[in-house]
């Protein structure tokens, strides 16, 4: 057992190190982080404008008017999320290379817009065309991957040109702001020319623009893979395995999966806004965070704490439940993972890996038969306690109830292991007291 543990630990650490500290994945994470306050703002107003029974209070016309009034909250944040991700990636990468990040951001956004088609097809056969507009969905879910790739490449070209010193230098005495905008002139010019060329080249391909090319060739296949139950179970298995070795599993796995899960969330959101009865994707960001591996803290440990409170008598477990329950309610659970401990504790490896996977399969099943609606794509901050987060994520009380059922499933799987641990700790504690007594007698 020790050999296997050492072997895995030795091989998991470098993976964690590479995935977390890779400059592109870091930029991606920071790009998404930038969007978070905006997305939560938009999400809150989507929840408000879809509160139950509003139609009875306001009437159908009143409700439509109400929705229109609040509509800008989400259309200026959630619907155009890719724009902010592009901005954030450009900023983060240029900061990493120590070149003016704000110009890097602006150039990345401009490059992305250059690649974006400025017409919209509509009508039943999509034959009607409006010119001179940027379709919102190109700045949302559909443009996510083009945006990410564009921001990476634009920032790279921009910083390389600067680092080659192909810049205009103003004489001393010129105000700083002026000289800075001149020094980014040539790098911006070269970067954007490259993207203009790409746009022109794609006009002569069957796709017409790079958006449709990337969507069909890269994004759509990755999304359909990422939304499958099998791939989700694999992702959750690795999240748990990393945590078992005391490494932050989500930070590592999500740095790869987030673009896919977030794009799936956005597509659900767009369908939801359009009034769809059945949302396209069961698996998405909120499915993972609020119903499976992140529910009640990584590895769903809130259920474990409840198990301890019900079944455990040993001092060590009681002590842990006291320290860990208050933060656990808000889905912060390092006290349990390191204090129980779960990390590197072979006695709990089975429930630790098994419980979230069973819950994932169960949640997927319940949502696919329509008993509980799929998450609508609004973002729920990860510190919202369970039951409430489930309701917010699905805009349905069924979401909250599902979380409680999931909690129960985890509790059932863990119970025998909690009892086993408790016996072990109890007897060790009794032994310790016995030894002390013997020692004091012998003195």
């Amino acid at each position, binding site marked *: 057992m020790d050999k296997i543990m050492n072997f895995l630990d030795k091989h998991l650490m470098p993976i964690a190190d590479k995935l977390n500290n890779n400059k592109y994945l870091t930029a991606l994470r920071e790009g998404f982080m930038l969007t978070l306050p905006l997305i939560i703002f938009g999400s809150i107003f989507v929840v408000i404008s879809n509160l139950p029974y509003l139609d009875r209070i306001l009437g159908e016309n009143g409700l439509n008017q109400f929705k229109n009034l609040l509509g800008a909250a989400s259309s200026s944040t959630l619907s155009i999320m890719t724009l902010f991700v592009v901005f954030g990636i450009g900023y983060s990468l240029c900061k990493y290379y120590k070149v003016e990040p704000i110009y890097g951001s602006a150039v990345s956004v401009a490059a992305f817009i250059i690649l974006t088609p400025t017409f919209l097809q509509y009508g039943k056969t999509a034959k009607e065309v409006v010119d001179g507009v940027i379709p919102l969905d190109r700045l949302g879910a559909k443009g996510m991957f083009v945006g990410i790739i564009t921001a990476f490449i634009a920032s790279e070209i921009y910083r390389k040109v600067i680092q080659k010193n192909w810049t205009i230098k103003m004489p001393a005495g010129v105000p700083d702001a002026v000289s800075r905008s001149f020094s980014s002139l040539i790098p911006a010019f070269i970067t954007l020319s490259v993207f203009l060329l790409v746009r022109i080249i794609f006009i002569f391909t069957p796709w017409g623009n790079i958006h449709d090319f990337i969507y069909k060739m890269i994004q759509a296949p990755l999304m359909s893979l990422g939304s499958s139950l099998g791939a989700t179970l694999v992702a959750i298995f690795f999240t748990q395995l990393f945590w078992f070795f005391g490494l932050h599993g989500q930070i590592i796995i999500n740095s790869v999966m987030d673009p896919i899960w977030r794009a799936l969330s956005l597509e659900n959101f767009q369908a939801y806004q359009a009034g769809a009865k059945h949302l396209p994707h069961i698996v998405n960001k909120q499915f993972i965070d609020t119903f499976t591996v992140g529910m009640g803290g990584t590895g769903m440990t809130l259920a474990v704490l409840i198990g301890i409170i019900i079944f455990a008598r040993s001092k060590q477990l009681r002590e842990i439940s006291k320290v860990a329950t208050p933060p656990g309610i808000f889905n912060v659970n*390092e*006290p349990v993972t390191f204090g129980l401990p779960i990390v590197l504790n072979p006695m709990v490896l089975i429930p630790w890996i098994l419980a979230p996977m069973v819950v994932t399969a169960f949640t997927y099943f319940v949502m696919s038969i329509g008993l509980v609606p799929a998450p609508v794509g609004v973002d729920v901050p990860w510190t919202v306690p369970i039951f409430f987060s489930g309701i917010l994520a699905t805009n349905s009380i069924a979401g909250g109830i599902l979380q409680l059922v999931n909690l129960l499933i985890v509790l059932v799987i863990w119970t025998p292991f909690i009892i086993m641990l408790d016996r072990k700790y109890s007897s060790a504690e009794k032994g310790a007291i016995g030894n002390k007594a013997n020692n004091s007698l012998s003195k």
Partner: protein
Amino acid sequence: MNILLACASGMSTGLVVKKMQEAAKEKGIDCKIWAVSQDVVEEEMKNADVLLIGPQMRFLKSKLESKANELGIKIDVIKPMDYGRCDGRAILNMALEMINN
């Protein structure tokens, strides 16, 4: 004395900070202790004498070590058991020892 803690989002290290502040008060030590997320840690390091990393983010150490050397500050990973028990006293002692050595 400035003690900086860092983890993924500064949440769980935030729990530890509170316990450390209590422990520092008991001991009558005047120090600033705070927790940050990994995306701002490099900026915050400039104001710290010592950086402690949550064990779940221990792969940050290799990335931050050169920066720490450059700034002349000490850096280490918190022991998992101390972290799990939110043992403010033990973690404060660890920081003090690092500064004094």
